[in-house]
């Protein structure tokens, strides 16, 4: 399967783990990675991709531009999807996250509700989530399954 995939992820350990699974199972896939919300969004809007793998919480700026103390988009993945909808750049998207809960206080939401919300908002291109855990292998199968369903 020769597909152009964009992977937006800031956690290097998770990024490497996902890339390993992808390369093993889809050796012909062409994967571009971006490690911040902004660089990822720009890459996505400026170029043609077939599939988007997306983290939910992302730093606003690239690593090299600022230190980690500046800007974090707690629902950055969702904002990227909003921009995809607004700019009519709707490609199949899988969210890969390490967390089952997001936000704090009133903006708190768990993964199940977030999934429902994303399905409702971005039904045209959101294809579900994969719950990553460095202590489990289950996510690998889930990712492959999600990928195969596209």
């Amino acid at each position, binding site marked *: 399967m020769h597909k152009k995939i964009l992977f937006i992820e800031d956690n290097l350990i998770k990024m490497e783990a996902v890339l390993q699974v992808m390369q093993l199972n889809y050796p012909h896939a062409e994967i571009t990675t971006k490690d911040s919300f902004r660089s990822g969004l720009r890459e996505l809007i400026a170029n043609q991709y077939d599939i988007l793998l997306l983290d939910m919480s992302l730093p*606003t700026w690239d690593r090299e*531009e600022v230190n980690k103390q500046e800007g974090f988009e707690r629902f950055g993945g969702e904002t990227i999807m909003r921009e995809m909808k607004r700019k009519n750049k709707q490609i199949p998207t899988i969210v890969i996250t390490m967390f089952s809960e997001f936000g704090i*206080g009133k903006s708190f939401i768990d993964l199940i509700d977030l999934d429902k919300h994303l399905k409702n908002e971005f039904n045209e291109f959101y294809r579900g989530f994969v719950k990553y855990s460095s202590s489990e292998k289950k996510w690998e199968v889930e990712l492959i399954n999600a990928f195969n369903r596209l």
Partner: protein
Amino acid sequence: MTKKRQIQLPIDKRLYQSSQNKFAIISELKRLSLSDFRKEVTKAYKHPITKAFILGKYTPKSYPELRESRASFYSNNLEGEIAWVLESILLSKNEIGKFLQYEKDLEKQLLLGNNHDASKILDKIENEICYSYWGLELRYCLVEKMSGTEGNWKFANSINSSTTNSYTLLFNQIFSKKSEQGVSCTDYHRSLNNEIRSASHHDFEYLNYKLSYYLISDYKQYPFLIYADSLSSIIDRYIALINLLVELLSSEDESYTKIAHMVINEMSAIDDNRIKRLQEFCGIKEIKIESIQYIKILEQYSMGDYEKCILEIPNILRETPNIVELWEIYVKSLIESEKQFIPTNISEYFDELLKKLYVTYIIENESVQKAEELLKIIIAAPNLSYAKQLLTLISSTLGIYSNKNVISNNLCFHSVFPNPLVLMQSRKTKCESDFNNLTTTICVKLIAGYSVNENQLESVISQFKFNLYQLRKAFKQKNHDKCIQVGTNFNLDDIKNNIFLEEIIFILFHTYYSTNQFDEAIRLYITSYFKNKNLVKRINTSALIETIIEKNYPFSGSIDSAIFFHLNNLDNYHCFVSIEMWLESVNVRKPSETTIPINEYDLKKYLFILEHGCTIDVLEKFYYDYDSKEEVVGERKKILSILIQNSPLNAEIFINELTAITQKEKIQSILKEVNSGRIRLTASMLDSTKEINFQNSFQRYRLLTKFSENFDLESYDYKTLLKNFLESFVDSKNLTSNPSFLSFKSLVNELIDGFLYNKKNGLDGELSTRIRHGEIENQIRSVFDKNHLISKKDDSGNYTNLAYWDDLLSSNLDEKSKNQIQQILKEFSKKIDSIIQFLVSENIQVKSENYPNKKNGFFNYYFTDSYFKLLYEESRRTHETFEEFVEYIFSILKAITESNLQNVAEYLTNTLRKTIDEELDNLRKSITSISCNLIELNGNIIDVKVEFQNEILDVANWFIVADSTIETAMDVRTIIECSFESSNIQHPNTIIQPVIIADENLLLHNYKHFIFILINLIENIRHHSKLPNDKLEVIVTVSYDQDILRFSVKNNFNKDMINTSELISTFERIKKKWKDDVDQEYVNKERGSGYEKIKKILVYDIKSKKNAFDFNIDGNTLEVIFCIEISFNYQINA
């Protein structure tokens, strides 16, 4: 809805014969329908106990006796619960009749401000009929008016110490607080919500229903709402039943209106205006003219004879002040006649009330404030008819509404005389012909969609009003085409009466929205907003915005839509989208690239969106246009420069922002260099305290503190009261505490919540995004992973074999031992994962009084009462001002956080490290017990021990505060840089780069004042040096020695154009005058070289008692020198 139950024997026989609990037998009747209940209860009366049970303690003779009735079981059957209460009311007709008489008088005296007389009437009600919560609530209203807040607290104290009933204690506390003059409605709502939010949905609804009806728009738990009051006095039961009937009749559910109809029929013998109005609503009774005088006013108003209304209404209200419709007509007539408010001279209090209504109705800047003041009057006596009606009148100004129109229906339900508006609310209402033929009635019928003779009506009322009624009718019928046709025919600029203008705008906006004309809706909104922002206050824009977002922004981008999104508090992302669409429509990418409009109105909008819309937070969302935070800040600086040039009146605000940005940049860069910590603590975490409500709460706390010093007050913790109330009357002894302390506690808890959970930079968010978010798990696990000591779970949640060891183990061990080793590693993996999991989900968590769930959280802000008391003792003695108080609490929270962070770091480097060490030792032992030859595996275990120690030290470094005092003071170099930058932005073509000679360790508080001094000096240099900027050389030198701050500004000047001897004499004069007092008049004038202003800043703002001015003129250079003694005002950074 009703559940019939088979009863073997007639109830009277069962009561006599059965050994069953008689109360239970009678309570069982509540399962029946209303009519069955009445039939059965008649039989049950043959046993004398029935009446006693149904009445309970219906006429308590003191406050402690309230709710001493025995509680019947809760049936959840609406008809049965109503029947129970109705029965007790029908059994007490005499008491009710007497109460209604007194109630009218009491209402009148209250409105006239005759508090003493009102109090006497209340005494009579309590002595001759009974005590009630209705009476207790009014008692507070009166005590507060007559004896002030201190009297209120004393009264509260007396009730608190005389009863242990949880319901009474809770309501007593709340009644007392809401009556306090210093407690605004907003304070009351915030405090109430804070106290009762933990109640179940059921109870939360009941408490709101009783205490702040308008905060919930749709009540549903009708059986419970009536049941909960069935234990109270007969007065409370009667009021509860009337309120419920209003709910039921307003509902469109036929089954509810049917029940209400039956009950009203049963109550027809009670002489109460409210019952008459309900009967008219249902069509049980025809509407007739009850008061000629009243009707005459309605007619005069309908036909536009406002002068007569103004003249005659005071005469009627003098006798019957509670005809609220006439209040409305009076103020509207004044507005229609373009008159200022004219007092009626009925009483000072009454005129104050009418004036508030007048200001509310003129829809100007103070309207909302006055409506809130009226709401405060309403909540003091919410069950009196005038309060219910007044709420209707101000509801639109405050954006209050109820889904079932209860609030608007109350105007008619509580009216002294029949109001023709009832025809708008009910199709069942019938009128006698005289009433039917009134012009007012015909107007109402026209709007309500009845067929009327429009030509005849047009001939007797003004064309404007006729058109307005047509518009209302079309809107009511959802005839959008007609709405737009009629609405757009009005020339909005010509309408002087804001009440009507606002209504037309409201209708047109909603019509545009309903017909998907988004651009028109937004244009109308923005035009109206810039005409008078109060005109759009009532418009609920949320549905329109939701549709716009859902439909992917189906409007043309414009400055109006950008402003619209900003005004409606959309988040930064949506504001960005709307601004980006506007910029695209004018073919630019950045706000600073737009062309400045020439037209005054367009310029106003342009400057508005630049100032308020294009903030750094919004600009950060311009994902495609700025590559770094610095670029975003740069864009804001450009915008500020445009604003400074085009909005000179607000230039100071923009300069302030500019300096703040510069300072922040400086701080950011300092932070990047010096801090490795991930947790930031800044005073802005308590920004919510800037809200006036907090300041009001603080004032209340201070008053209570002073008061408590003189009186031994008793009060109760709301949360404990609520708990007891919900748990049904637990012994409440030992709960007493000082109300000042409780007020302090509640205030501090709110501040803690803000500190921990505010969206922008709350500590929990910081922990979540900077630490909990995956980083720590990955970081710790990676050490084990690298050394192949930790495995992963498969689909079923079982740990898998570590394949890495398979070959190595096979060469040394048999199959059984190999499996054993793999099993040991799996167990080890499980342990390590559970340690990490616990650390993230339980330890690195915050706990506080309002969010106590994370019991093992390291960030503990759950203060014990003893600790609160310590803080309270300290605070009440020392903190006179709100600022001091907030600063104090922040310092406490900061100290606690620093201590918490230290504990976490210590936990990680000691406890966790040891735990992991032990686990590694155990692993090693377990492996050795199988085989001693697994050298590589053992080696890896040792490696992990060392690596983990290093890794955990790195992780521990995350738990350090990243920022401390920098925000409160600024180093002198930054001050100088900020000053020049501010000046340079105002003069972008003549940028001055100074040479700065200053001690970088010197930090100055009140830095803003120094910036203003420097800006003055820089302006002097620009204007008087007569040199182009590229030839200008400026040197600023600052030093500090022995309490004297010395700063000098030296610049060259054009010697050919400046007469040096004149310059010397000018500065000699300044130096001589420097010793005189500040010439305030001179300072206030925009002229001269600014030295008087500098002196004023030094004397008044910096509060320097000793300061000196000097100068040196040498060749072509001028140096001005200031020496300031400011020992209290600086700080040397160690």
